[in-house]
């Protein structure tokens, strides 16, 4: 069955009359890795807000695996299999990275099974593997509040992996990361894409080039263009509103 994992029809979101999203149409196949770029304020984060239920659409609808998400609350949507990493890292500061991961790992999130069922050992194993993947083994048992910005970024990516959703929404995963780590993140995402559907938002074009297959450009709340990275990069409209031209001397 080749149903689209995400389909968005004619979506508008307005705040006090300002349309952050404007008649947006978007759709995505299962197993796709899609990169969304666009100028600051184009509505990318808002787009994720709508999908995850943080913001309710003013007009239009979001279909996830054919299900209209409008009626559902955030946690329900998350349980359908949508995971999200926020633009500024948000982790539980008083829990250790290990505990942060354990929480996300938990499969059954209702009150009583969390309370009564012990943590299955595969989950524990996943957590330690993840800790290695995100390079926080050393700090695994210090409170996450003490991590630096970049470390938190990684921890949050780790949490997303732990949650293992069908659709991953990743908002600026490499902001504030060093090039090396950026590269690693890219590899991580690409390998993930084999089994998940992913939406990545990024401004770091280097990174975009590394991972992108299909790119969607948002501008002023609607899709400006869509296509492979080369097509998009060479589209004059994109250059104008987003990429800019380097007049500066190159060192």
């Amino acid at each position, binding site marked *: 069955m080749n149903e689209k994992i995400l389909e968005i029809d004619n979506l508008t979101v307005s705040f006090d009359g300002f349309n952050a999203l404007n008649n947006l149409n978007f759709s995505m196949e299962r197993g796709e890795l899609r990169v969304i770029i666009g*100028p*600051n304020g184009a509505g990318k984060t808002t787009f994720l807000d709508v999908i995850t239920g943080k913001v309710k659409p003013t007009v239009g609808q979001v279909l996830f695996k054919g299900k209209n998400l409008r009626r559902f609350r955030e946690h329900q949507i998350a349980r359908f299999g949508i995971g999200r990493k926020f*633009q500024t890292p948000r982790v539980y500061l008083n829990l250790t990275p290990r505990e942060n991961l354990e929480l996300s790992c938990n499969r059954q999130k209702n009150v009583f099974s969390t309370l009564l069922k012990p943590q299955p050992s595969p989950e524990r194993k996943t957590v330690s593997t993840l800790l290695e993947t995100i390079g926080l083994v050393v700090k695994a048992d210090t409170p996450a509040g003490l991590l*630096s910005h970049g470390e938190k970024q990684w921890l949050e990516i780790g949490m997303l992996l732990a949650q293992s959703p069908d659709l991953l929404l990743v908002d600026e995963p490499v902001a504030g990361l*060093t*090039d090396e*780590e950026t590269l690693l993140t890219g590899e991580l995402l690409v390998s993930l894409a084999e089994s998940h559907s992913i939406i990545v938002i990024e*401004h770091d074009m280097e990174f975009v080039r590394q991972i992108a297959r299909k790119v969607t450009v948002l501008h002023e709340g609607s899709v400006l263009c869509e296509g492979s990275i080369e097509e998009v990069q060479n589209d004059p409209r994109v250059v104008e509103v987003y990429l*800019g031209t380097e007049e500066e001397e190159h060192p």
Partner: protein
Amino acid sequence: MLQISGLDVYYGESHILREVDLSVYRGQMVCLIGRNGVGKTTLLKTIMGLLPPRRGKIWFDGVEIAPLSPDRRARSGIGYVAQGREIIPRLTVKENLLLGLEARRKRPKKMQIPEDIFELFPVLKTMLDRRGGDLSGGQQQQLAIARALMGQPQLLLLDEPTEGIQPSIVLEIEAAVRRIIETTGISVLLVEQHLHFVRQADWYYAMQKGGIVASGLTQELSNEVIQRFLAV
């Protein structure tokens, strides 16, 4: 302009900065590089007075600023763009910008936003009455830089100013920072991951686990060396 010697900073009982020495001269752009979590932000915060050093001295403009509170430091000419933007969320963009004036030594009688700010960041002009917290991440970042410039600082501390900003504006910011240094002669201490921006600096310091491990002219650095610092 700025001189730091033997700085030791702790968070509670954990030792973060160890014996940091660093200088920034007038009109110079200095870049601080290092991996995530080595203590770059901590250093900038200490300069700004947000964290008390346990040992060491900081001079700004020949004056020791250790006893000064952050707001006094700001008014003596240090501008700061924090990592994570730190916009005042429920004030409008305009009010956020006007707050930048607080740092000026002579406060203008009429509270007005000079046009050149909008030349640099045209988006802001269209958003003057929007709440700062409602802006998108990148817009907030632009606002934060603009706000710091409003105060006409002598020394500008930039903590990853291009994080989350669209490529075209990153280029503009780079150009603008250079231009400002050239025209006004202020100094800049920059923390950056963007290789391209790092190259614009005159001098670099490389940090590793809380200490400065290398420094020198940026020109003498090959890309590979920089990359090594950032990557280890």
